[in-house]
């Protein structure tokens, strides 16, 4: 690996200024689990890495109203084990437990995972159904964006060259929401991820949020499938109503799956159908309320 300078800012503003000053020659660095691999293999080269871990308080996890605010340097393990997250966002804790392996979880960060924008990400898919928001800071102040507006392509985000993600804000599901996440694959990164969150009222799906990731460069919500689910009776769905197949069919149509080492397009579309049904049935089986 080519040598680089390590800049250790103590404030977000300092980090943003350092990014702006470097004019593209610098990268933000938190866990380094993706970035350093790419640098070691020569795919990326930076003169300067800006270590956001030196910014005090950026790893905090705290409640803000109905949301849990996860600081940008909080590791996957910290998120997984945080009592607030376990209590209010149990599905996020569960999914974080399944990210990569223990070594990655202990140093890799949730925010870093989102910003690196590798297409095969569990949290990027899951956070779509939580309708999480992101706090973004730049030299001229900060803004808040929906998590779905961050990633624009493989390894590409909408962040400006002098902006950094400072926090991930995850609202807890309403009471009565049944949620589940499924992943599949034999590579270290998932081949497919599907998240489902269903608000159930009087045995009927009042609202549905479905997200699909990993089969294409950017994780997405599946609005046509969500529309079909709304108003469906859950006992009919559990018994395999035709709506279940319709939801799965639309999901595979809307997947925009691409061929890569994880599989061909037809195989991925098939997996979307299989796992959409499995995920919905798992979510519906959780009749105890909350998202666990």
């Amino acid at each position: 690996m080519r040598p680089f300078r390590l800049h250790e800012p103590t404030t977000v503003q300092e980090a943003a200024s350092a990014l702006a000053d470097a004019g593209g020659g610098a990268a933000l660095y938190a866990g380094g689990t993706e970035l350093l691999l790419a640098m070691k293999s020569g795919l990326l080269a930076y003169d300067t890495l800006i270590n956001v871990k030196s910014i005090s308080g950026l790893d905090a996890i705290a409640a803000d109203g109905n949301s849990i605010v996860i600081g940008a340097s909080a590791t996957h393990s910290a998120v997984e084990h945080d009592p607030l997250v376990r209590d209010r966002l149990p599905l996020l804790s569960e999914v974080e437990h399944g990210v990569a392996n223990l070594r990655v979880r202990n140093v890799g960060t949730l925010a870093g995972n989102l910003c690196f924008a590798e297409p095969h990400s569990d949290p990027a898919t899951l956070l779509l159904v939580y309708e999480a928001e992101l706090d973004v800071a730049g030299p001229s102040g900060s803004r808040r964006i929906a998590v779905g507006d961050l990633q624009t392509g493989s390894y590409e985000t909408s962040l400006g060259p002098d902006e950094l993600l400072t926090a991930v804000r995850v609202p807890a599901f309403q009471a009565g929401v049944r949620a589940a996440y499924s992943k599949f694959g034999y590579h270290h990164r998932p081949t497919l991820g599907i998240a489902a969150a269903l608000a159930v009222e009087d045995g009927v799906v009042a609202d549905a949020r479905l997200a699909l990731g990993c089969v294409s460069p950017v994780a997405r919500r599946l609005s046509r499938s969500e529309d079909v689910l709304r108003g469906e009776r859950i006992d009919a769905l559990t018994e395999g109503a035709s709506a279940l197949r319709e939801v799965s069919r639309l999901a595979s149509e809307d997947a925009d799956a691409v061929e890569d080492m994880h599989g061909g397009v037809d195989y991925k579309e098939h997996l979307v159908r299989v796992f959409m049904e499995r995920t919905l049935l798992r979510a519906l089986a959780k009749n105890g309320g909350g998202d666990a």
Partner: protein
Amino acid sequence: MTTREFKTVGTAVRRVDADDKLSGRAQFTGDIEVSGMAFCRLVTSPLPHARIMSIDASRARALPGVYAVLTSAELVNMETHYGSDKKDRPVIAIDKVRFQGEPVAAVAAVDLATAEAAVELVEVEYEELPTVTGIDEALDPSSEPVHESNFCHEYGYEWGDVDSAFRECDRVFEDTFEFPMVYHYAMEPHTCIASYEPDRIRLWTSAQHPFLVQAEIARLFGRQLDQVQVVVPFVGGGYGSKSYTKIEPLVTALSREAGRPVRLALSVDEAMRTVRRHAARGTIRTGVMNDGTIVARECTGYVDTGGYTDNGVRVTERFGDRMPGPYALANVRVKTYGLFTNSTPAGSFRSIGGPQAIWVCESQIDVVAHALGMAPFEFRVKNLVREGEEVRRGRRPIEGDLEYALRRVADEFGWDSWTSGPTPPGVKRGIGFACGVTNSGASPTSTSLVRFHADGSATVYIGSAEMGQGSRSVMAQIAAEELRIPYEKIRVVASDTSAVPWDRSTGSSRSTTLMGLAVHDAAIDIRQQLLDLAAEHFEAFPEEIEAEDGRASFKGESVAFAALVRNMFGGSGGELMGRGYVTPKHASGKLRQDPVFWEVSIGAAEVEVDTATGEVRLLRYYSISDPGKAINPKQVEGQDEGAAMQAIGHTLFEEMLYEDGQLLNPNLVDYRVPIFTDLPHEFETVLIESGNGPGPYGAKGVGEGGIVCVAPAVANAVFNATGVRISTLPLTPERVWRALHEAGQT
């Protein structure tokens, strides 16, 4: 036959290197620093097949901190090519590159950062040539030749009257199976430090065969053997990837150019472009009678040896030796071919040609059994070669009872009473079996020296490289047993060509059998000297002396070995030296025939197939290991389970993927090796000690048997579960789903 009582042999003693490895003190090549050492980085070819039109290293050489840049222009006053069977590998690419990642230039600099910066300043101009990818393109006469032609080696043998047998048998089956390119993934990638000096060459390297490296370096640089010292510290896994000579000639040539020691430590990415296992295709025609008797097998095989021969000659031959299987066959014809392609050169890998051959052989045995309506297990038993019969004409007869071994595995597995039990919708379970014999042992040539010290302790000198297999512990056990002293009093010095006597190699499951015999004989040589000294001491005959626990005794009196040695030298010091020579003419008479022994492999698998996704889960796996005599039972199990675990990789996940000659997955994120969560819930080694090996105490090697049966056992189990035969590895979910889908099973 009396059963001998052993003190340490047969016991799972604590490894002699346990404390060093657990504490992190154990020294690997990468831990060594040599004064004045420069750091090397490689300029490698981005193209898989090209002529080198020019190399301009002037800007790199001018960079401050750069000591030297090696290109083919510097390969003067030395031999330029090396290799174990065919010397076709240039020390660094000459005129042409034959695979992506082939070293074209090498930089030595004051530190790695400078070397990396210099690499970017070396300008190489290429003229691209058409790429040859895979067996079909290598066989296509219109393809660009990688060398003079794309044929590396041809091998074959035949007995009986094959054509008549096929005409006269009841049914003939022909099937073709494919085995992927896979990488060893030794946790330590290849690492070497070379110091080229006026009167000698010193190397510290992660090599399995230190004396073969010594001979190759001496030949390349025109030195005497005694002027080349090869030191092999602990090796972080070999599996064949560090067999013969790999990066040592390049590093030595660069050290000569730089005028100082040079260190090169490869990355995983670079190691995957240094050596791999041969991809293979095998076709077997089998002629059978309706009663299930196999009357003829005709095997045709191809192995892809990549850009250079490396171990392609022997792999081509072993693939052919092993493909007909462990069956009594009256008529056999085998032809195998090694082919060049534009990919990483393929060399040794745990049981060379074995997993490929047994994959083809044992997949087809199930196909034939199913077509005949016979149970695959009974079909195998009916056709097995019997103990004492030749499994290959003119070779050593089979030295174990294969039917007994098969039945033992089946019994322990619960083969006959197995039922699928209830499964969720779309999930199917099945069981599969495979067996094979592999001709192991390499050449029966090793030597050992044992020094018995004046305090009753001993040092054992062996050429074997310690790469995790535990050879140092086994050699200490053998020496302790024969010297009649405690295991703790033995120290083992290994794999430094200036200190230890010659050994051929560490591979082919050979060390316990062959180096073990050398240590055994060297220790007995010393014991005899001690008995002679004791006889003198007691004024008795040597045969009348008892030797035990470091003391010699006669008629109720005893004397310490240490005292005998000190008395011999008339003072406080002195020592005895014992030697052991192992050659084909060894006095035991057991090493005259080839192979030195047959390694038996048997596997039984239970799998679960999710027909919706194609995912195959290995639920249970039973393997057999026959070490003849288990000198260290825990290490025997470790070898067998480690080999089977490694095989789960090529069975379910592992495959080096090439597209237009570019390796697509040169890292451990995209190239998936087995991890602990892939272990079956039940993973058992059935230990048989048949006592008939040619090594000490009837021991024989077990390092490779566990790797050969996993793939066919699993694929046979998938067939048993789904009725679908898959003929290409690995059994990835997508490949299995497509096969099920085509068969209308999803």
